[in-house]
């Protein structure tokens, strides 16, 4: 397993290298001069030129890349043009929000998506199944930001139950009760993804339930719920786990929108804001880290896959 993980990590290297070039290129193709934006309205062309030089933005692109990548390897993602602090620190500041948001969202996805999917599959063809599958599909069809706007309107402005926006750190005053700030955003984010998991659990369970070994399990006289969970769902989990990598990617994408709607100080909003501010080092850093994270998650998914399915051997 360790050897396999190591090997997989090695195969990530070329992908990562290619991704880093791509990230770098994308960012430098963006129109907009960071120096001009930093200096604001009243800057003279001379001042802009001076700052451009100071930031090293006047060198050939490949030199900038080599320099950047060398620094990345030593753990230095550069300094934010906007905050004038190390990029890593800017990202770390946003990481708390994004990680907690992702965890809470995953929590909803799992506690909503999996049981509803199991129920839906167990009552296949009945009204229960039709209602749950119908709603799952409906929720997968709602634009995230639209849902978020209405959740704020109903639960924050209308009922006053939950905070509308922002997220004070859990290390600040309020401690873990600050998690209530993440309830609406995480539900918004979970809705389409839980819907996806419901449908996936349902369809893989239906596939598995047609398999012979389920009949064997039933012939042992086991309770249908036990058959559904231990034999059908457990095997369906293999396909579901494989989809979690995809869910993770969807989560990151939709977090960009959700964090914007709820003004959360997370990495998703950081990307949008940094694009608007032309804060190249931050955009590069965030995207690079997300790409690495995504590959890492995919590795975890593969490991989980092997762990869930004894037929898959890691070699």
């Amino acid at each position, binding site marked *: 397993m360790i050897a396999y993980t190591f090997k997989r990590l090695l195969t990530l290297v*070329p*992908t990562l290298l*290619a*991704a880093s070039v*791509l990230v770098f290129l*994308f*960012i430098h*193709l*963006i*129109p907009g001069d960071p120096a001009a934006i930093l200096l604001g309205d009243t800057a003279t062309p001379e001042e802009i030129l001076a700052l451009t030089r100071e930031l090293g933005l006047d060198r050939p692109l490949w030199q900038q890349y080599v320099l950047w990548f060398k620094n990345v390897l030593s753990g230095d993602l550069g300094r934010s043009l906007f905050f004038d602090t190390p990029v890593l620190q800017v990202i770390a500041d946003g990481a708390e929000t994004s990680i907690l948001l992702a965890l809470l969202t995953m929590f909803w996805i799992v506690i909503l998506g999996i049981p509803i999917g199991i129920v839906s599959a167990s009552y296949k063809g009945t009204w229960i199944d039709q209602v749950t599958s*119908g709603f799952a*599909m*409906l929720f*997968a*069809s*709602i*634009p*995230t*930001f*639209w849902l978020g*706007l*209405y959740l704020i*309107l109903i639960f924050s*402005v209308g009922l006053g139950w939950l905070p509308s926006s922002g997220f004070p750190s859990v290390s600040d005053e309020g401690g873990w009760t600050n998690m209530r700030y993440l309830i609406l955003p995480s539900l918004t984010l979970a809705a389409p993804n839980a*819907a*996806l998991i419901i*449908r996936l659990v349902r369809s893989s369970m239906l596939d598995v339930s047609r398999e012979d070994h389920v009949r064997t399990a039933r012939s042992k006289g086991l309770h249908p719920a036990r058959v559904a969970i231990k034999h059908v769902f457990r095997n369906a989990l293999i396909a579901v786990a494989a989809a979690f990598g*995809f869910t993770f*990617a*969807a989560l*990151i*994408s*939709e977090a*960009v*929108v959700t964090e*914007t709607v709820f003004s959360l100080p997370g990495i998703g909003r950081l*990307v*949008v804001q940094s*694009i608007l501010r032309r804060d190249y080092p931050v*955009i590069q850093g965030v*995207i690079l880290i*997300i*790409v690495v994270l*995504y*590959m890492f998650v995919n590795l975890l998914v593969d490991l989980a896959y092997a762990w869930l399915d004894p037929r898959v051997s890691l070699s």
Partner: protein
Amino acid sequence: MKLLTFVKEALEGRKLATAGAIWLLIIVVAGIAAPLIAPFDPLEIDPIARLSEPGTPYLFGTDHFGRDTFSRAVYGARMALIIGIGSVMVALLCGGLVGMLSGYFTGLGHVLMRMVDVLMAFPALLLALVLMTVLERSVFNTILVIGIVYATTTARILFGMMLKLKNEVFIDAARCSGAGHLSLLFRHILPNLLSPILVQATFIFAFAQLQAAALDFLGLGLPPEVPSWGNMLAEERIYITRAPWLLIFPGVLIILSVFSMNLLGDALRDRIDPRFKDDIAGV
């Protein structure tokens, strides 16, 4: 024609999916005949009539420019079609070709699929965001960007299908009877892939609507003057309480259309050749 019967068979006995298909038909008609249906010019500004409530003559009310929301919604249907069909075409042309060629010529395939892997490591919206910032806001670029994002998944899926098909007996038979690469790919293999491609296309169409709306919301999608449902939501979102109709109508239109497309895609997928069932992600 074969595809039409395929769709007809898929919809048999599925009331909700049939209702969805009818709704989509309405959207298509509205989109094509927009100038005939829309009572007003969707761009005509009328400061006096701004933020009028739904009623006559403004069926869906007006926005803060005093533009008729109903007319904009009708033209929005046209834009939804353009975005959907455009993205599907880009995704299928780029992704489909890459996927098919990679699956057919395995040597080349490994290289191409590695490149697809690299692109897939970028989460969809993030990739779209960065690409949109590099390019400028325009209908064409939006289509291109969304198309490229889904081209990666399409390439993957078609690659998988090709690997399965390539070893089927009838392909061997055709190969033995002297069919060339081109003829094998397009005369023998492609027809077998048409229905799964159609299913994939419905899902891309549906996702493209959501992606386009998200890009519009972030201010990085279609040019703001283009009447699209996403822009209508993005531009008027501060009026959520002041003029609720401005968010409800376009929002419901997006949801219904994506929902219908997903239902249709689901029905088609259930009808599809079991060989490919696992390959298509969908919702």
